[in-house]
């Protein structure tokens, strides 16, 4: 977890600890019960849908917003009430917040002026920062004369030029078009590894989070629902929300029947008198369930294998009808309708050649026991 990247001088990266943070706005609890520690040099991401409290959390860490309760510690020292200008941080705002009356040079140099950096050093450091984000030659432009991507780079240069010990990024890529977003994403990760600054990133885009982060905290309605590495979260989602939010999945309700060897047997709920299908899941992975428990079975679209609808019925084999076929070259994504009417999304990398892949064709779906994920069903409202 504690990434120790090669540093290019400057102060050591910061460790950030949040203890039991709470923040309300009127009747909405924007953040509640938030406790976690962000290691030095980490690229840490808060991920969640719009309105889940990401910005609120980031603003509290920046010192722009005071928590109602709880504590924030930098390297073990409480900073909860320290004003932002004494926190030694860099921040990129979602709308960039570039000062429209200042040139690019003045925008980037602002923090250095506040730190009373001598003129020639200021000049050198601003130039360095601009070079780092690829903006040489635009020093004398005003923000209004820059493209969205360029503005984003100025905001980034402004945040890093002061050599902060902590970098905060609030959905920095959300205002860019898709291509630029992918490019900036790559540059951002290179830059962060190069600088080695502890970075806290906020996004609602799971792809961004998976690609950039050392660890991700998934927030939902102001609460931390899961904390872990991208791989943890994808492979072992804590609940239906996380599984759905990260990558998407098929969800099927069922009941645990019992245990056979290393397999936990789950009977899927049947509709309309159709024979109950059975799925085997890895018992060692799901020690918390026992016979009689209600579960939600979660299967990723790419874990389902499309096989011809013949041969004997068996566990981990679901029969259905091909409903929709989207051939995308390298992958094929399709939907399969089960007899009881449920629709599963399937993503196949190498489509089988020994069967007709037309809409309406009968097919079977196979899933390996390791890919069957059992989750507690969401509390019914």
């Amino acid at each position: 977890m504690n990434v120790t990247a090669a540093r290019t001088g400057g102060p050591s990266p910061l460790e950030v600890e949040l203890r039991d943070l709470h923040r309300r706005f009127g009747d909405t609890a924007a953040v509640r019960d938030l406790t976690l520690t962000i290691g030095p040099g980490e690229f840490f991401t808060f991920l969640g849908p719009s309105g889940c409290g990401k910005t609120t959390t980031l603003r509290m860490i920046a010192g722009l917003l005071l928590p109602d309760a709880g504590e924030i510690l930098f390297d073990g020292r409480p900073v909860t009430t320290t004003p932002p200008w004494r926190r030694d941080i860099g921040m990129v705002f979602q709308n960039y917040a570039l000062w429209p009356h200042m040139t690019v040079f003045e925008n980037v140099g602002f923090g250095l002026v506040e730190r009373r950096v001598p003129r020639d050093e200021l000049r050198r450091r601003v130039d360095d920062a601009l070079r780092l984000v690829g903006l040489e030659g635009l020093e004398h432009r005003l923000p209004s004369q820059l493209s969205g991507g360029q503005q984003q780079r100025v905001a980034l240069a402004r945040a890093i030029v002061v050599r902060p010990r902590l970098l905060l990024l609030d959905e920095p890529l959300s205002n860019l078009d898709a291509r630029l977003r992918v490019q900036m994403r790559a540059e951002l990760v290179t830059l962060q590894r190069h600088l080695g600054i502890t970075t806290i990133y906020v996004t609602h885009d799971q792809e961004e989070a998976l690609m950039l982060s050392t660890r991700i905290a998934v927030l939902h309605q102001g609460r931390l629902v899961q904390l872990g590495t991208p791989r943890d979260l994808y492979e072992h989602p804590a609940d239906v929300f996380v599984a759905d939010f990260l990558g998407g999945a098929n969800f099927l309700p069922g009941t645990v029947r019992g245990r056979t060897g290393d397999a936990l047997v789950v009977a899927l709920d049947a509709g309309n008198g159709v024979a109950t299908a059975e799925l085997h899941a890895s018992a060692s992975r799901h020690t918390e369930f026992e016979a009689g428990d209600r579960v939600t079975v979660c299967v990723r679209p790419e874990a389902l294998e499309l096989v011809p609808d013949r041969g004997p019925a068996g566990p981990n084999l679901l029969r259905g009808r091909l409903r929709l076929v989207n051939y995308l070259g390298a992958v094929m994504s399709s939907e399969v309708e089960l007899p009881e009417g449920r629709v599963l999304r399937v993503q196949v990398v190498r489509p089988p050649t020994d069967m007709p892949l037309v809409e309406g064709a009968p097919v079977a779906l196979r899933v390996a026991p390791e890919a069957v994920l059992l989750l507690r069903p969401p509390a019914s409202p």
Partner: protein
Amino acid sequence: MRIGIPGQAVAPAPPGVGWRAVIDPGHAVLGLLLLAILAVFVVWPIAAVLGAALVEPDGGVTLAHLARFFENPLYIESLANSLRAGAWVVAIGTVLALPLAFLVARYDFRGRTLVTTLSTLPLVLPPFVGAIALTQVFGRAGTLTLLVQDLFGIHVNLMDGLRGVIVAQALHFFPFIFLTVAAALMNVDRSLEEMGQTMGAHGWRLLRRVIFPLVLPAYAAGALLTFVKAVDDIGTPFILNVKNMLGPQAYLRITTVGRDDVDGYVICVVMVAISIACVGASNWIVARREYATLQTGARASGLPTRLVGWGAIGALSLCVLVLGASLLPHLAVIVMSFSRVWSLTYLPSAYTLGHYAEIFLRAPRFIVNTLTYSIAAALLGVVIAAATAYLLQRGRVPGKAVLDAVAMMPIALPGVVIGVGFLRVFYPMTLPGTETSLASTGAIFVLAYMVRRLPYALRASHAALHQVHGTLEDAAAVAGAPRTRAFRRVVLPLILGGVTAGGVLIFITSAVEFSTTITLVSRIEQSPLSYAIYIYSQSPLGRGAAAALGVVAIVIVAVGTYLANRLSGRSRMAFTL
């Protein structure tokens, strides 16, 4: 002030939090300071007027004085005259404004922009300046009267008594209706209209069923505002020597009978009631109008139809005719300021520069006083307005609604009432160590002007600050700038233009302020030019000098308006309504 989370133990709030707390101590101090200033210079004078009119010496509230008002035939006549004049001004203004508004909103023709630009001029030009020359144009021996008589053989004297006041004010105030209605018409979503058409509404029915309901609120607001302005304007009746109206009566009671005469205050209370009723109604209508402007998000307001040939000529002629009539008095003032002999002829028969010599060389103090008072009022007003706007938008203090209400209060107060209130409060006070009354110092003009125009400056500051997104300040704080530094380096440079425009607005409106001025002037040496215009215009020999001062006023206003628009870079509407 923390909000606990039910059912959970919450750590106590950290002590000593300045920045970001619910109540910011710095903001609280600033807020209290502003409230104290406004309490002394806004609330107290008004309370003094109300108290004099409605409170018995023993402290009980009484309506007896108010009842006496309605038993006095002179007051009844004055009230009726004021209301009648206001109604006629609105009626004539409507007839002048609506066709023009429709033309400008729906059609494009050469000179269209010039029309909208020129139509804002009367809003800032003082009506009484035009009134100096009105008699010369429309009066018994006026240029137009003579022209009409020579052409058609009819003699009409438009300037006779109350009629003169109505003509002068209608010509002057109709742009209030024109501008609000034109803006509303331009805002009406064309797609709503088209929807009306597809549903079978055409022509008159379309106008009645779809357009009227959408534009009516704007018209009503503009009309009410015009009414208030007309009742408030006592300069025109004074210059035209009409005394049986509310404003002049209030002034006359206080200045001739005395500051302790209850009747003067009672008249003020009646004026305030009329004014508050109109402003309140206008605000209510505008607030209700929101539904009509909600759809403006992705407005498909079609381009205005282009007029060419006779259509364009007709449209422009109509505009020139109406605006010409409205600006004619001011043009006549310019001619008059150079005229030595102008009697029974279309144009003067002899010219002179003597009037300018009089006002610049022999009696320059009027101009000097005006500049001094207005500049001081502008500086003071800008600081107060900017600080108030900042607190209202960004402040972490309770009671913002009170501050807002008090600062906006003068918008519903007639100028005479502000003057009378200032006299009541500050006349009995003397400068420390002297016998000089506070009310006879120059500072009293500065304060009264500042109070009277504060709402306009506050609006300008609000608009300017509104454009500075809060994250710009946040970004500065994160970059290492403490609050005051962030204000100086980020907020101030960004709002300076708009705030200065508000200051210029205070300056120009104060430079031509009449109602409050006439109430406060106690010695001619202190008089600013507006009162001097009145004094000069009362004698036939002084009319030329009055006109010359009027030209100075026009120049100040024209230059100021230009500056305010340049500085703010926003639509003129924000600064005039």
